[in-house]
């Protein structure tokens, strides 16, 4: 069977599975819709969180990014996993004990203020929308490349699927679809990685293969790659080019941002007890780390393969995958010296580089570069779609609950009934799907950049407000609001200035303390912490019932009762 037939079959089968699950797990109450009834098992929640978390960026782009960045790519690996330690230790159990439906719910109640709730709603919607547009785009690219349909049609199909299970099933539908999507995406990521590891190092476990021996040259793989890099004028793969301080700040911004992303946090509201919330963060990170420790191995395999298969090869005899990806514009060759051969070299080489490779294609093209069977290529397409759709659904739920629950039920129209609120949630989810689809079809040029910055914004707004809300009883309404506003304003201003207002100045010489816009969220978070703590000491202490609320969330016992009383 051809690659395209396999792709079509595997994608169709996975979509049928998601729809089947959606029909089986329809939501019948707001509690079902927002937190899947609160009765999800920790293991299932861990898997759903992993799929929720690992987006098109993790599946499609990350290994490619690392492949081109070498050591500097570590910021993503540590940043996007280390945040789960913060979630487990500092956030998840306490937010579960509090037993809200959404993040703004907690912020509004803890800071006894509608204004704080609204600020949190705006942050949540903003962060989620920037993120979801990127996912829809990922769906479009996979469709466009593998099924040769128009990108817009691809986005349309993706919208249809998400609409079906998010609007019908809410969190309940999303949770169980995400469990299936995790299985699809991890299988799709591991199979080619295992093949590659066997081919290059003779070890089936990619994590060991990375530290193993390159069979072609008999040298340790990383040493071999460093050698190739040196020969071609790239810096050594295992050392970085970014300043240590910048790596430090970017890693911190990604870690803290991860712990502050609302679509991740709300997953821990869906389990029955505090201890389930704790252990399900552990399961989530275990499932995530399977992909995250494989990705750097895939990066090295792909890098070695790419160099070996194109460097100094005559353009007339390039492999088939090269021509195919050339058609999409993601690989381009410019024969600068007119010798008909491809010179792929780095900045330190005396030769001129003639090849441009888009880093996003490394994972998608990998199976083809390595000549893997057709079904593996189809599987990768299905996996990429699973990753993009599962994250999109989680984000859409945050947007819909922010509108129907935080904005309508808790602020503007507290008198609406449960049934009306559920209807509002479905409508909001439906509208959000269309807005996301629109941005997927007409991406503003800055989507890709903005997605990375969503972390900085989450880090500088939610994280300090939630942490201090739990760990410092003295934190007041005024402190939290001013802290959130100053943190997110500072971070957004720095990012906007260097990326949109004055992109020419976006270099280490002009950055404050040498911190890039990617890492500035860490400074924004420190600013937020400082402002919140100073203002809190200067304002009147929180009312007694709020201090009692803080006391109660610090102790696990009682969360189970809340769960049973709710509906």
């Amino acid at each position, binding site marked *: 069977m051809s690659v395209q037939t396999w792709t079509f079959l595997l994608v169709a089968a996975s979509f049928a599975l998601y729809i089947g699950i959606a029909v089986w797990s329809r939501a019948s109450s707001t509690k079902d819709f927002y937190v899947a009834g609160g009765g999800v098992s920790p293991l299932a929640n861990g898997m759903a969180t992993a799929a929720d978390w690992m987006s098109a960026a993790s599946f499609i782009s990350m290994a490619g990014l690392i492949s081109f960045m070498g050591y500097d790519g570590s910021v993503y*690996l540590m940043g996007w996993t280390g945040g789960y*330690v913060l979630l487990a230790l500092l956030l998840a159990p306490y937010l579960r004990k509090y037993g*809200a439906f959404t993040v703004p719910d907690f912020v509004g109640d803890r800071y006894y203020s509608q204004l704080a709730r609204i600020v949190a709603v705006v942050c949540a919607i903003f962060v989620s929308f920037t993120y979801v547009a990127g996912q829809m785009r990922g769906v479009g690219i996979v469709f466009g490349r593998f099924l040769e349909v128009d990108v817009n049609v691809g986005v349309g199909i993706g919208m249809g699927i998400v609409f079906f299970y998010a609007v019908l099933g809410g969190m309940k539908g999303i949770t169980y679809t995400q469990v299936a999507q995790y299985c699809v995406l991890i299988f799709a990521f591991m199979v080619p990685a295992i093949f590659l590891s066997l081919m290059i190092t003779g070890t089936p476990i990619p994590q060991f293969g*990375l530290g193993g021996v390159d069979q072609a040259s008999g040298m340790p793989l990383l040493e071999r790659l460093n050698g190739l890099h040196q020969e071609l004028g790239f810096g050594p793969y295992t050392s970085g080019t970014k300043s240590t301080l910048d790596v430090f700040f970017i*890693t911190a911004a990604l870690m803290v941002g991860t712990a502050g992303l609302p679509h991740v946090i709300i997953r821990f509201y869906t389990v029955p007890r505090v201890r389930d919330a704790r252990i399900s963060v552990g399961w989530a990170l275990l499932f995530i780390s399977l992909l995250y420790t494989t990705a750097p191995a895939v990066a090295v395999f792909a890098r070695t393969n790419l160099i070996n298969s194109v460097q100094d090869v005559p353009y007339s005899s390039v492999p088939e995958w090269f021509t195919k990806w050339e058609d999409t514009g993601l690989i381009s060759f410019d024969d600068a010296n007119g010798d008909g051969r491809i010179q792929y070299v780095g900045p330190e080489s005396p030769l001129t580089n003639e090849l441009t490779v888009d880093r996003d294609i490394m994972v998608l093209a990998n199976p083809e570069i390595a000549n893997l069977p057709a079904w593996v290529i189809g599987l990768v397409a299905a996996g990429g779609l699973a990753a993009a759709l599962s994250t999109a659904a989680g984000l859409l739920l945050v947007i819909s609950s922010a509108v129907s629950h935080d904005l309508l039920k808790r602020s503007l129209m507290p008198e609406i009934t449960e049934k009306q609120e559920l209807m509002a949630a479905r409508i909001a989810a439906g509208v959000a799907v269309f807005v996301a689809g629109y941005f997927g079809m007409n991406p503003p040029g800055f989507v890709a950049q903005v997605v990375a910055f969503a972390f900085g914004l989450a880090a500088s707004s939610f994280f300090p407000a939630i942490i201090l809300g739990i760990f410092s009883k003295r934190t007041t309404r005024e402190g939290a609001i001013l802290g959130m506003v100053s943190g997110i304003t500072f971070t957004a201003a720095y990012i906007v200035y260097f990326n949109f207002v004055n992109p020419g100045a976006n270099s280490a010489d002009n950055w404050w303390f040498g911190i890039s816009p990617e890492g500035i969220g860490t400074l924004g978070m420190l600013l937020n912490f400082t402002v919140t703590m100073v203002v809190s000491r200067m304002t009147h202490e929180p009312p007694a019932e709020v201090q009692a609320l803080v006391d109660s969330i610090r102790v696990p016992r009682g969360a*189970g009762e809340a769960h049973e009383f709710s509906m």
Partner: protein
Amino acid sequence: MIESFSNGQEGVQNSVTDQATAARHAEYWRRNIRLLGALLIVWFVVSYLCGIVFAEALNAFTLPLSNFPLGFWFAQQGAIYVFVILIFVYVKLMNDLDREFDVDEGEGA
């Protein structure tokens, strides 16, 4: 959800009137903070110190039984393994602490 909120508050008001319980909860919280501090130190050392600040220096060494430069291994593999282990250790120690201070949620849901 309003119900569960007020429900939580009632629980707290009972415990506030009970001085012994309040003192027990305060001690539980101190022990919790101490545990968090210890685990977060490990978290910081493996990622920010071994994986970033001292990564280049550690690259002079090789991870035993493999060909990994040590700093690079911490940054792209080791730190992640330690993160996973940290969370499971936290869960175990925290559940024990809950039982010791009689604030656990019991076996039933």
